[in-house]
Structures are given as structure tokens and as C-alpha cells.
């Protein structure tokens, strides 16, 4: 049987904060990453585990003033079924459908995805493209970290060991469009080769120019990234063929993917460019 590190299951947030303040723990939610890491002997198993699954205040989806707030323990199944997600951020439900299959969607959480900090994390480009704020808590209080600052290095987050991710707040911007694309070996159970989220604002007309363009990608760098040079090509431009050609070639230059077991750098570069091109074509209806 795999290694079974000691575990504590606090029932309240203050209890969890006190434990984290005293000793180093690996917090876990649905365990769909940790138990794979332990069983596969990927790195040292954690010395101690903090099971936060029972902290029900970290669950659920609600609208708060001008933001959609998703609790860190909200599962992909809950995201798929949420009427609020369907109304305000349907791209999040589209992304949740692509993660694992039913068994994983029933257990995996958006907070776990953020804290696991994989460059291939399926939800993370959406958080970047939508200017999400990630709210952390500790015995010292709460603080908010912008998605852009949340993954500073490979498999690292901006949180201190004494902090827990509590919720993710996504500003609701009138007229914002969000699209999500994931390329994997098969539809279910695939870690992405490339994952992409694109957000922009424009008038209803398919020929009107895009504003506030945010393009984010996963699996093309050591951390999930925004593609600033490609965004600059798209900013203020309408979704025409000329613009799509320029944006696609800029993106192929801009990203620096690697060869690994899932794909090659060349393929990732080519497919990222093609997916973006197709997406712009779909929006421009040409």
C-alpha cells in the first residue's frame, strides 16, 4: 500500500489556521493530485497532511457586488451544474467538462487546481484571462493576490505555508466575452498539450474591434502565462483574417514550450497558433 502520512481534519477555519501556524502541513482538498503523487512516488510524500475537505464555508458559488465568487473547495461537478456559472461565466463550465472524467470532476476542486500550481492546470488560464483575485487566509487575516502574481515559478504559488486559499473572485465585466480551448490526446482524462483562454470586450457586431484583450495559456511555459505581445496585436483590432494571421504568428514566436512526454515544443507552438486563429475566425464569422 502507498505511504500514509499523518493527517488532521479540522472542522473550522480558525482550527485550520492554528495548525498551519504551528507546523508545516500539506493542505489537501479532493486529493486527486496528492494521492497520485504519493502512489506514483513523485517526490517525497508530505510529512503531515491538513485535510480541509470539511470546511464547508469554502464551498459554493455566489455573486458578490461585481464579482462571481467561487469557494476554493468547489468541485468541477458543482461548476458544471451551477446556474450562476452558466449565466455569467459559461467558459468555466466548458473547462470543467474537460477535466478528467466524472470521477475526477466529483472530487477535484478549483482551489486545488490553483494550489497544485501545475503549468498544465486546466482552470488557470481562465483565472488569468478573467483577472481573477485569489483570496488567501491565515491566523493573521485575509489578503487578495491577483492571478497574474499567483504562480511566480514552476509549481510555486505566492502563498506562505501558513496560508490557505479560501476563494477565487472573478470580476464581472459587462460585455466581456470569454472563450476556452483545450488540446489533449483525448477528450477525457487528458493532461493538456496546450490550454488557452481568451477574454475581450466588444460591441455585438462581429466586425467591431476588441478591447481589453487578455490571452492566457497553459502547458507552454513553466507557469501559466499571459501572452502580452499577442494581446497587443489583438488590442483595438477587429477579428479579421489579417489580424488572425498576425496574432497567430506572434503567438507562435512568443511562447516557449518544451518537448515532454505529452507533446513536442514544435507541435505546441503550431497548435496554439492554429487554435487562436480558428477562434478569431469563429468570432469574426469569416
Amino acid at each position, binding site marked *: 500500500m*502507498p505511504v500514509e502520512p499523518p*493527517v488532521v481534519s479540522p472542522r473550522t477555519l480558525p482550527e485550520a489556521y492554528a495548525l498551519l501556524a504551528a507546523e508545516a502541513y500539506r493542505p489537501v482538498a479532493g*486529493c486527486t493530485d496528492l494521492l*497520485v503523487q504519493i*502512489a506514483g512516488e513523485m517526490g517525497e510524500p508530505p510529512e503531515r497532511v491538513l485535510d480541509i475537505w470539511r470546511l464547508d464555508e469554502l464551498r459554493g458559488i455566489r455573486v458578490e457586488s461585481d464579482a462571481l465568487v467561487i469557494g476554493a473547495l468547489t468541485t468541477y461537478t458543482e461548476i458544471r451544474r451551477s446556474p450562476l456559472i452558466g449565466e455569467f461565466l459559461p467558459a468555466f463550465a466548458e473547462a470543467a467538462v474537460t477535466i478528467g*472524467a466524472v470521477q475526477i470532476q466529483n*472530487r477535484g476542486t478549483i482551489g486545488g487546481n490553483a494550489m497544485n500550481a501545475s503549468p498544465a492546470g486546466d482552470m488557470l488560464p481562465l483565472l488569468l484571462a478573467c483577472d481573477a483575485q485569489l483570496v488567501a487566509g491565515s491566523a493573521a487575516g485575509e489578503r487578495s493576490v491577483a492571478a497574474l502574481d499567483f504562480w511566480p515559478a514552476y509549481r510555486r504559488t505566492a502563498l506562505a505555508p501558513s496560508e490557505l486559499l479560501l476563494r477565487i473572485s472573478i470580476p464581472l465585466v459587462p460585455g466581456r466575452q470569454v472563450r476556452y480551448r483545450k488540446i489533449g490526446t483525448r477528450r*477525457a482524462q487528458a493532461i493538456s498539450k496546450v490550454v488557452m483562454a481568451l477574454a475581450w470586450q466588444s460591441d455585438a457586431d462581429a466586425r467591431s474591434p476588441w478591447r481589453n484583450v487578455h490571452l492566457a495559456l497553459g502547458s507552454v511555459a513553466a507557469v501559466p502565462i499571459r501572452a502580452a505581445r499577442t494581446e497587443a496585436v489583438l488590442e483595438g483590432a477587429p477579428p479579421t483574417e489579417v489580424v488572425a494571421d498576425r496574432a497567430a504568428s506572434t503567438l507562435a514566436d512568443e511562447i516557449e514550450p518544451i518537448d515532454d512526454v505529452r507533446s513536442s515544443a514544435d507541435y505546441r507552438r503550431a497548435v496554439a497558433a492554429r487554435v487562436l486563429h480558428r477562434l478569431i475566425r469563429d468570432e469574426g464569422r469569416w
Partner: protein
Amino acid sequence: MSYRFVVNGDPVEVEVPGMRRLLDVLREDLSLTGTKEGCGEGECGACSVLLDGMVVDSCLVPVCQVEGSTVRTVEALADGAALNDLQAAFLETGGAQCGICTPGMLLAGEAFLASGANATDAAIREAIAGNLCRCTGYTKIVEAIALAAERRRAPTGPESPA
């Protein structure tokens, strides 16, 4: 630590480390070996069980998170020697070949049937997308779930062939 939950209708209490996988608790501590270990990393679905009615990979659930919950395994489906309707449908369509994926397929199928979703080919295939059949007998498995869905919708329908 001691953890209490309900397995197949029976209350159980186990004295085990909290990070022990539900899979190991079922097979090693409770001797319920109907649940199979395939990959041990959430890829194959062979260890699927229902946890509070939701299908999960029991290799990815630590028992500390099962406290107070209800677990259903493949052992709960038949009534003695009488197979339930989904198991019978697997038998009729040839949905079971080598058998290692079958318990997981049955539980994923049960979760799908319980959801009340329309049993289209695409919906069934999505419902078992987390379950690998290494005999690649997917067509017959899909047929079995569709057959059981049809019979649950129309329980007084045509008699099944003898």
C-alpha cells in the same frame, strides 16, 4: 484514528491511518474485494465506487474524508445470486469480458442511470469516459447501460429473452 461510515447499508468502523485510500480500506480492512485496483492513479476507473451517490475513484479518496458518508460497492448490486438489472444487461449484451473493469463500469453506469440523464450514446460514453476497458469492449458496455436505462424507464416493457 477510527472512522465510521456506511458500506452497502452496513455501518462500519475502521481503526486505520486517515490517509489510507478508501480502496485499501474496502479491500484489505473490510475484505470487499469486488472493487479492483487498476492504475492506482485515477486514470482507469477500475476502483470506482459510489460515495454519497457520486461516482469516485476509491484510489483517490483518503478514508478520513469518508467519515459519516455512505459508500456503495459492486457487492451491493446483486441480491444474493440475483443480479440487478444493470448487471443482467451486461450479461445479456456481452458487456463483461476479462472482468477487471466491470465493477467500475457498473458503478459508473449506476451513477449515470441514477442521474436520470437521457441515455444517448454520447451521454453514456461521457459517463464511462473515466473507465478504461483493456479488452476494448466499449460498444457492448454502452449497449448494456442503454438497455438497463430503457428497462428502468419502462419497467413493464417487453420481457427479456430467456
